[in-house]
């Protein structure tokens, strides 16, 4: 496997190398764990991030021989595994979102002390997060997975389809429904301009 990425050797090449040299798999961790960890922290709280990330990479390591080496970027694969791990915490996630929706206090921020990034949009949007949490809490797990892989993990439709093992058409339809519910949760008083995307 000689495909390379902006980061140099492709994920697929790293995984293939790890078939013979298991320690090489650590390169995949260094490359993607920061993003997976932050994604998990956003969804389940900072206190869960380490264990869920660890479990994700353990499972990935065990399954590495089945990785499709034709896919140079392993992000969809890893996020798909993370989604499976986080499925155990669907109820916890929903409880957190409901608590956030009720109180307005973001439990994710609370778990690490809330060093927020500042930006004008961010400040305006912060007021909407309570409503977004309510909307997310009302989504089925399938719809929530699709929405968050796209919005928070920055996966494309195709990558989301790979991650969840569904068709791109299903991604589109689930995303459409999820966004419809999110918009409903935001209500008519949304000061933002809501426009469709993709």
């Amino acid at each position, binding site marked *: 496997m000689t495909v390379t990425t902006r980061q140099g050797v492709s994920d697929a090449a790293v995984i293939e190398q790890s078939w013979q040299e298991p320690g090489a798999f*650590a390169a995949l961790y260094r490359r993607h764990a920061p993003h997976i960890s932050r994604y998990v922290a956003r969804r389940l709280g900072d206190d869960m991030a*380490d264990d869920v990330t*660890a479990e994700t990479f353990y499972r990935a390591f*065990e399954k590495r021989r089945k990785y499709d080496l034709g896919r140079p970027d392993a992000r969809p694969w890893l996020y798909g595994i993370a989604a499976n791990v986080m499925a155990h915490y669907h109820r916890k996630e929903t409880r957190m979102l409901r608590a956030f929706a009720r109180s307005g206090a973001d439990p994710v921020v609370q778990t690490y002390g809330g060093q927020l990034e500042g930006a004008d949009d961010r400040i305006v949007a912060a007021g*909407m997060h309570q409503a977004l949490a309510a909307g997310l809490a009302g989504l089925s797990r399938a719809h929530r997975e699709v929405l968050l892989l796209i919005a928070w993990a920055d996966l494309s439709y195709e990558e989301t389809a790979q991650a969840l093992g569904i068709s791109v058409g299903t991604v589109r339809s689930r995303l459409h429904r999820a966004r419809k519910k999110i918009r409903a949760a935001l209500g008519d008083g949304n000061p933002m301009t809501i*426009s469709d995307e993709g």
Partner: protein
Amino acid sequence: MNDLDLMRTMRTDAPIPSQQRLDTGEKRLLKVISSDSSGARRAVRTRRRFGGVRVMLLAGGAAAAAGVAIVATQAGVSPVTLHGTPAAEAAKYSDPLVARATFGWLPRGLHANGYVADHQHEKFFQVTAQEGGKGEASVTLTAYERGKEPFLGYLPGKVPAKRIPAASINGHPAYWIYKPNPSGQSSFELRWQYAPSSWADLEGDGLSGSSAELTRTAYKIAKSAKFGDDRPIEMPLHVGGVPAGLSPDRTVLNNGAYGEVSAIVGYNAGGPSSNFGISITKSNGTIGTAVPGKPGMPWKGLPRPNTKLKGHPAYVAPSLLYVYGDNGFDVQITASGAVLAKLNKTGGVVGLYQRMTVLGTDQANWTPNPIN
């Protein structure tokens, strides 16, 4: 800004993991990788760290059930062969789980309750004593198959681990891989050569005591460990009709370790896409409600029954079978590739289940000869 943009602003509230945390995570991963490239110790470590998560069985890419990790086969053995008659009459297998090492002395509250025989890469037998209930303390003794010194593994940053000098054990050379230290390191890993070309590891986790006390504990356990007893370990199942010609791959019995009673028997089926595993896990009464997605895709939970087998709710697919509550256990059989083709000649996964007996939770009924 649309609703997706709003969602993305929410993402920015999530903390960026510190380098220290990432390094710790990498260290954990590397330790698992280095100590067990086949993943055999993963169940030990992950379950402890992962609290209440019930790790899902992986079967040909599909996660299907609760309790334990199942075996994935590797390439490199001769093809499966059958002899044209029901496989139960054709194959003979030796006892898959034999106690090649046993504990002597153990700290109060610990007793042997988990066993692994792994033949995937670095062949070894492993016995674990884990504290019951919510206890975190555990010790694990690993006896490697005779041969060269096992791989040492890596430290954080992919720095190869080094042998840390240690006092001999019963006159045999020893060294630490991880050493208890005064800074609060409560885990340790001690390795020694108990006979020519014969190596053992002792790992401790979550034990209380100062570094000096933990060192004494480690040595007391190591000095009293026994090797070569080779007693077959009794298991809570018997299966007839496992196709001939498979290589024993990985066998696991948890008899209270990790809070469960479960058994796994796996075989190497002769190709990277050939999986074959049988597992049973003490039932908690849960019956799944998940429905399958596309073939080969992950399940989201336990499968919803679509039939009954031997009077028990069951989910049956060509390469996967899940039965709820057979004599107190949930049963899973997975097969794919060449071994599935062979199994299909004798009734497939359902046929194998029909030739299987779950022996219940009373150890008095268990057998040391669980296969064929």
